[in-house]
């Protein structure tokens, strides 16, 4: 086993462990903080995949903005933080079964695919992902339409959220 594989396994276990804490913790602020840990683990996974830009963006967007939005929303919507009512449905076992079946089904389907245990080719020398990304995001023959549509989507989200949450009547 190489060093890279050991690092991957540690990070993957950390990520999955904190993800489990996210869905099981009673205190919602703790759940949000565990989400931060999970997302940080995912950022490390991106770094292992040689996608440095994605790793930094993951930290900037998820930890810097989305996690904070979650914490603010929790603060805005709780009556009592120490509520002792059950945090899960009555039929939580059915949910667990569906989730487990989804996981098994996904792995089973993927396993029959020929490229399942592919190994990565080396990164080409002088390959600059960010520069490539900039070119493709603005090139009319590539992804300029998603680029502009993303802007419209964000506008719709901002206007919609402001309207829905704080429309003073």
């Amino acid at each position, binding site marked *: 086993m190489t060093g890279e594989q050991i690092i991957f396994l540690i990070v993957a276990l950390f990520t999955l462990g904190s993800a489990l804490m996210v869905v099981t913790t009673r205190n919602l602020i703790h759940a949000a903080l565990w989400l931060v840990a999970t997302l940080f683990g995912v950022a490390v996974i991106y770094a292992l995949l040689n996608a440095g830009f994605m790793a930094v963006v993951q930290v900037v967007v998820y930890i810097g903005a989305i996690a904070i939005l979650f914490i603010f929303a929790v603060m805005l919507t709780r009556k009592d933080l120490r509520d002792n009512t059950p945090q899960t449905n009555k039929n939580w076992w059915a949910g667990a079964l569906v989730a487990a079946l989804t996981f098994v089904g996904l792995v089973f389907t993927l396993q029959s695919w020929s490229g399942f245990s592919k190994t990565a080719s080396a990164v080409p020398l002088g390959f600059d992902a960010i*520069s490539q990304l900039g070119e493709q995001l*603005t090139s009319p023959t590539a992804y300029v339409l998603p680029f502009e549509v993303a802007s419209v989507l964000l506008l719709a989200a*901002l206007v919609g959220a402001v309207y829905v949450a704080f429309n003073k009547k």
Partner: protein
Amino acid sequence: MNEWLYVALFIVVGMIIPIGAIAAGFIFGPKKPNPIKQSTYECGIEPVGEAWIQFKAQYYIFALVFLVFDVEAVFLFPWAVKIGQLGLYAVIEGIVFVGILVVGLVYTWRKGMLEWV
């Protein structure tokens, strides 16, 4: 070798040193807790009620606008890296992109959501 390994080393050492400093304080400092000392400080007055007070919706709006512009920056940084080698069309695309989002800022502003109330 992956350059992120160095960043990981920085994170590790950056945690070790504050932990060491705090541990030093823990070792050398006196430890005589009592209920009065451990009560929270509220300007010398006895703490009243719950600390988890209800808070203002304005914070959520600020975080919301920030989130939107944060994601916008994610799209714009690759654009900014490449813009020096691309033609005028790329600049116009950037102007359209930012322009659409500024509409959102203006909407929030006109709704009076950017005021600190």
